[in-house]
């Protein structure tokens, strides 16, 4: 497209042209009024216009007319100038000539006459111009008295142009639009909603990462370089418990920083498992200090303090709130369409297919053929559904009972599969923790470490396919079968993360499982346990010493780190090792071996792809608390996934055969995301409110005795406020706040439900009204016809 297509330029040029034409028009109108008496000049102008045949109108109201006027003026002025010179030269010459009384030649006479007429013409023109200028000046003066309005107009224009620039910047920030065009051109809008969703997730991750950067990374980094500007203040703690905590932290740090032989293999192991030197970095919870730092400033009365523990907790809380708000806002725009979908009687299925069927974005021939095939398939599928529905209604009772029995069995099978998967995950986690202190070789230990994550990935890949196959047997309608498969797969994926966390909790926090005893702590000795059953290994072995769990939060963080890496590797590996070879084989052998042709290329199934990416995001949210660098890692991972999936779609896989409705797809993605988010929040909320933090690491070290939980950092902070704000906050905890708030929310929900019901009724009434109006119109037309006929008939009489 080489033509400029911005509507702005059109408006700009139009408006400026309009303005200029208006100005010229006014000037010329006035000038023509002034010259009303000067017919000669008018005639001159008309002549000037009629010079060019294109300009047909005699009224000078366009730019070209103005140009002609100006050109005629200037040309006549030139002639006059020459003429003046010529006349002057002539007279001079004549005067210089001595007494030459010869009459001027004919040519000279003609010239002089021309000059005279031109000069009078010029004088008239000048007078006319002066009058025109006078008029224009009065107009401008009048307009200047309305300068207020002018200024506001200009001001508003300035603001509007600023807004336009901002909107332009915003569109430029919405990156990847080129990629979307490519995808849409080939596969239509419904497939590109998946990629838009991915971009939205990248943005979400970036926001969380930014929050973390401001409040967690940078303070922690500055803690490492404590200088004279800061004094370190430990807000809480004293006595026996506090000393124990300090000792535990010291021994933990020592253990992490003792260097062994710098083997490459060991470094690789450390990176893969997140232990060793990697544990002592910002990647894991255990690295973050619990100190409160205050700016030591003699001149100010106030101390600027930064409580790391409070900052950490609040940042996590605020990022969850931000994510929640963004998800809800995005889904509220699509919930309308979801509701419309459910109301089957009002949903115009066929009209939507006919009038909204063709995707106007498609610009490749291959895709247009493909799209037509999709539309054809959709119509065929809808017609088939109608047939099936008729068949279903005509099912005999015997067939019905058989079908219900089949469905029951399949549901039981699904349930069994789910329970089996969960139990497998629990077993592997258990195995992992049991073997934490066993004497295994390094390689075996690596395998054992990655076992839960690998098991989860395998289950996530295989079980949904089984669900798909099962749903075909159940003989549901197409859309319902898709929905129920997706619900089951979502349940599987979310619950695997749940089960992992729960089994870790069970293992790490339930004392009395291990036969190792924690001997009585002595204030003056290095503690044996630090409250953690897995603190030390019984056998004094360097290798085993490395594998002890001294900080359970970092340990959980390591599991999530491994999950993240496994997810990344598994998606990449599946594309590389399964889908690409499948495509190559299909390309070469499809004409020879029938089976390969039947299997076809890998399918880019939208719901399952969405589940992949939502799972990555779920792992990120879950691990965000234990693994503060996880948002950054997920940001990179989702960014990478976009391009990987795009490559898969364009080169490797086949586009989906079923026509996905763009609107429905987007709302479906948002719903799945919201459900996962809520489940994760509940889990994390329980953990923060109920679990005792580690004694040796993390920002909540001081709260690690049996009576405290992590949330106490907030409670302590509130306790240190002056009385009045404290009382206000305490009010929010009492029943006097909760009960009225709950009642008000219930009432507002009920009110909105009632209003919606009222709107539905109104819609019905309006539909009836439309119908009756059309009937009335027909009736009236018929009457008019009748009357006309009667009139004609009477006339004929």
């Amino acid at each position, binding site marked *: 497209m080489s033509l400029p297509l911005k509507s702005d330029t059109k408006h700009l040029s139009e408006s400026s042209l309009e303005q200029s034409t208006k100005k010229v028009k006014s000037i010329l109108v006035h000038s023509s009024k002034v010259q009303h008496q000067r017919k000669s000049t008018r005639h001159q102008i008309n002549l000037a216009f009629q010079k060019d045949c294109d300009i047909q109108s005699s009224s000078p109201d366009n730019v070209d007319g103005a140009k002609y006027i100006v050109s005629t003026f200037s040309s006549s002025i030139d002639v006059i100038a020459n003429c003046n010179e010529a006349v002057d030269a002539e007279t001079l010459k004549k005067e210089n000539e001595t007494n030459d009384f010869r009459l001027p030649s004919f040519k000279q006479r003609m010239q002089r006459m021309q000059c005279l007429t031109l000069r009078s013409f010029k004088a008239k023109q000048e007078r006319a111009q002066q009058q025109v200028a006078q008029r224009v000046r009065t107009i401008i003066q009048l307009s200047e008295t309305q300068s207020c309005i002018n200024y506001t107009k200009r001001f508003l224009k300035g603001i509007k142009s600023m807004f336009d620039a901002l909107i332009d910047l915003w569109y430029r920030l919405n990156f990847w639009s080129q990629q979307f065009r490519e995808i849409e051109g080939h596969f239509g809008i419904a497939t590109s909603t998946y990629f838009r969703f991915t971009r939205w997730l990248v943005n979400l991750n970036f926001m969380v990462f930014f929050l973390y950067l401001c409040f967690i990374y940078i303070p922690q980094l500055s803690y490492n370089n404590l200088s004279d500007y800061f004094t370190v203040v430990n807000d809480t703690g004293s006595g026996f418990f506090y000393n124990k905590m300090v000792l535990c932290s010291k021994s933990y740090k020592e253990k992490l920083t003792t260097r062994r032989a710098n083997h490459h293999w060991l470094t690789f192991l450390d990176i893969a498992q997140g232990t060793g030197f990697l544990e002592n970095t910002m990647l894991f919870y255990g690295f973050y200090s619990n100190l409160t730092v205050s700016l030591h400033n003699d001149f100010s009365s106030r101390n600027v303090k930064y409580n790391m523990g409070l900052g950490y907790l609040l940042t996590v809380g605020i990022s969850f709130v931000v994510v929640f708000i963004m998800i809800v806002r995005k889904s509220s725009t699509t919930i309308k369409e979801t509701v419309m979908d459910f109301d089957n009687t009002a949903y115009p299925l*066929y009209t*939507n297919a*006919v009038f909204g069927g063709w995707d106007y974005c498609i610009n*490749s021939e291959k895709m247009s053929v493909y799209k037509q095939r999709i539309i054809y398939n959709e*119509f065929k599928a809808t017609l088939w559904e109608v047939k099936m529905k008729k068949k279903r209604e005509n099912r005999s009772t015997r067939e019905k009972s058989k079908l219900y029995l089949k469905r029951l069995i399949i549901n039981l099978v699904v349930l069994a599969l789910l329970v089996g998967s969960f139990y497998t995950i629990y077993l592997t986690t258990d195995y992992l923790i049991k073997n934490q202190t066993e004497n295994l070789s390094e390689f075996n230990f690596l395998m054992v470490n990655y076992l839960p994550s690998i098991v989860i990935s395998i289950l996530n890949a295989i079980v949904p396919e089984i669900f798909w196959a099962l749903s075909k047997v159940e003989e549901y309608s197409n859309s319902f079968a898709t929905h129920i498969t997706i619900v089951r797969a979502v349940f599987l994926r979310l619950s695997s993360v749940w089960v992992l966390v729960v089994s870790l909790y069970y293992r790490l926090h339930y004392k009395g499982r291990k036969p190792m005893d924690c001997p009585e702590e002595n204030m003056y000795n290095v503690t044996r346990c630090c409250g953690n059953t897995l603190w030390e290994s019984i056998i004094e072995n360097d290798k085993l010493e490395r594998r002890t769990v001294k900080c359970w939060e970092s340990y959980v963080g390591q599991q999530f780190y491994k999950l993240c890496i496994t997810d990344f590797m598994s998606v990449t590996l599946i594309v590389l090792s399964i889908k690409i070879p499948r495509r190559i084989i299909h390309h070469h052998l499809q004409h020879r071996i029938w089976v390969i042709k039947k299997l076809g290329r890998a399918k880019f199934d939208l719901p399952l792809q969405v589940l992949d990416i939502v799972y990555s995001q779920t792992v990120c949210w879950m691990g965000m608390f234990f693994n503060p660098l996880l948002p950054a890692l997920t940001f990179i991972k989702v960014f990478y996934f976009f391009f990987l999936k795009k490559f898969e779609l364009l080169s490797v896989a086949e586009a989906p055969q079923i026509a996905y409705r763009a609107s429905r797809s987007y709302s479906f993605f948002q719903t799945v995301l919201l459900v996962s988010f809520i489940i994760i929040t509940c889990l994390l909320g329980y953990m923060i409110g109920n679990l005792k933090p580690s004694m040796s690491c993390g920002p909540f070290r001081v709260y690690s005795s049996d009576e405290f939980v992590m949330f106490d950092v907030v409670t302590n902070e509130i306790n240190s406020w002056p009385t009045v704000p404290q009382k206000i906050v305490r009010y929010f905890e009492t029943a006097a706040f909760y009960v009225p708030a709950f009642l008000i929310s219930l009432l507002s929900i009920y009110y909105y439900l009632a209003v919606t019901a009222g709107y539905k009724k109104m819609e019905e009434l309006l539909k009836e009204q*439309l119908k009756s109006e059309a009937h009335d119109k*027909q009736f009236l037309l018929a009457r008019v016809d009748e009357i006309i006929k009667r009139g004609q008939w009477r006339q004929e009489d």
Partner: protein
Amino acid sequence: MSYNESSMVKIPLDVLENMPELKENPFRRRICQVFSDDATGDMAFDDFLDMFSVFSEAAPREIKSAYAFKIYDFDGDNFLGRSDLETTLKALTQNSLKTEEVKFVIDQVLEETDLDSDGMLSYIEFEHVISRAPDFLTTFHIRI
């Protein structure tokens, strides 16, 4: 391009039909006819801008439905009759549906939309049903 030329210089229909944005569209001829001044399909710059502004994402629903009605009204009688619907359906599926299937689909469409039961869709009925069809807005646009 001067102000004058923007409404006078016209691009002929066959050049427009080969434009990448319209090349694969089964309704391209009808689109050009609707947006051109004299219904021949030759578009001037103003018409061209109109077309793309209607097809842009920012155009409101009313404008899009008004132009969609004109595009799908092949015989130009301001009603979407059975013949118009049949032509639309055939263009969508490249004539691959059988006759009774076409008839069934058209019957269903009329049942969903025709409120005054006159066998045709007027503009009001069309707009009413389009406001409830969620895919129309998303598919009725061309990205440039």
